[in-house]
């Protein structure tokens, strides 16, 4: 997939140089219905993800355990 096709819907801009190759899309025959399901799923998950990803992930600090 060409890098210019990328959409960035996140709260942070994507840094070009960190971007890795994205796996090729699934076979075309099932692509359209599957893509719809995936879009719908990602929309739902966008809605429940904690708002500031970077800060939230950085703040998740645990003490030792078994």
């Amino acid at each position, binding site marked *: *997939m060409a*890098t210019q*096709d*990328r*959409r*960035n*819907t*996140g709260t*942070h801009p*994507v*840094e070009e140089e*960190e*971007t*890795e190759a*994205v*796996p090729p*899309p699934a076979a075309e025959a099932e692509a359209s219905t599957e893509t719809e399901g*995936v*879009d719908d*799923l*990602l929309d*739902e*998950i966008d809605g*429940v*993800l*904690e708002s500031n*990803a*970077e800060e*939230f*992930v*950085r*703040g*998740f*600090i*645990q*003490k*030792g*355990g*078994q």
Partner: protein
Amino acid sequence: MGTETEYGVLAPSLPSANATVLSSQIVNAYAATLRTGAGNLSGTRWDYTDEAPLNDARGFAVPRAAADPTSLTDEPPVLDAEQIAMEGGGPAALYGEQTQDNPVLMNMVLGNGARLYVDHAHPEYSSPEVTRPRDAVLWDKAGDAVVLAAMRHIARMPGFAPVHLYKNNTDNKGVSYGSHENYLVPRSVPFGALASGLVPFFVSRQVIAGSGRVGIGTNNQRQGFQLSQRADFFETEVGLETTIRRPIINTRDEPHAVAEKYRRLHVIIGDANLSEVSALLKIGTTSLVLSMIEAGTAPAVELRDPVGALQAISHDPSLEQLVELTDGRMVTGLDLQEIYFEAAAAHSRAGGETDPDTEDILARWSGLLGTLKRDPLEAAASVDWVAKLKLLQAYRERDGLAWSDARLHLVDLQYSDMRPEKGLYYRLAARGQMERVLTDEEIARAVTSPPDDTRAYFRGNCLTRFPKEVIGASWDSIIFELPSRRRLQRIPTREPLRGTRALTEELFNASADAEDFVTRLLTGSDTAVAP
């Protein structure tokens, strides 16, 4: 068998909060949800008398002074009112009538036979003993419902910051906490046979039961995705510790049962599972391998470098990574699982009649290995790491994210958030995208009811029926305080397969009160049913 789950704990609005205090809030909040009229049920003390965490299955004990302090799990943790107050949120609301002499609750024994307690800096739920893998998953899931109830209670309390729990195993910053399994094994099985039979199995089990992790290395040193949350935290093949130098085979010899007859295999290498299928197969296949080791029919495979193989397999989601056996053969994690599956199927056929549980595990195991061989991503509805990877790949495709992107790390973390409205596992399950083994009704029942077929039935019913008189309990004891007796009455329950519904239901029903119950148990004709 049974499970232990240590939850990751976080109060996002109090970033520097003391983790032990937050963990105690979970225990005390759950107690508060039960407190009305429940007497000691909300605060049964743990009986540490029979604990022996430093006994090694290889036939020796580590001197106390030489042990890592975190290994001393037989010393009750204490948190006083002052420490609680320092963290804000005065004790009164959540902690009830606590005083200097009556410190906050750090431990509870529940009516379903489980234990909910503060383990170092994490809340931990240990499920009651069960005899079937499916029940192990059921009462483990009941623990998730227990801690959710506690989280909800804290969120409703004025003055308390909401506490979030995560059913995962690392903070991705060098710290790991466990999800353990326990299996009762006849003492007659040599420990060496257990270790050699299990190492290649555990090294490859992550293929069917890993929870998936964004980041590679204990401190997330390299970018990428791996199968297991725990693999990078293991350093040796066999050992006693669970917090340092973590071993693939743990040798803690603390059976919580008749020691001459049983050993407890304490498994620390598993990931905490959200997927019911992953959890069922993790426990079910391990039980089958243990049966084979007992019968001497386990496959004779040996890895050249078990710890290296564990990590190499974890780091390759394509499942093509080859690892070397001591006979020179190169195999994948899937190959190892197939070797164990074939042996288990043959073992089961040779044994003649099989039970439906075994048939179910074998059929699921075989089906899943076939699916993973065809295309790992096809197993997304049943395996946690695949479900997580599929979600992450969708984000990577849509938004062109690198593995280092914080949003992918957030998806990883939030997959295991215990709140159904926030946890991504629960969001997938609500959309019908995760295969279920259990029903929500069953799980709700297991929150309050113990299993029928082990001593957990006796423990749970003692607590539920005599909440005022039971003042202490552990896996292998119940302590009654009765007005008529000057001394506490300790009832040993060292045989895990007694104290069942079949043996004790009548005794419970016939007893007018705790006095009557204990008298019948100790002196009457009912002694035969005593656990």
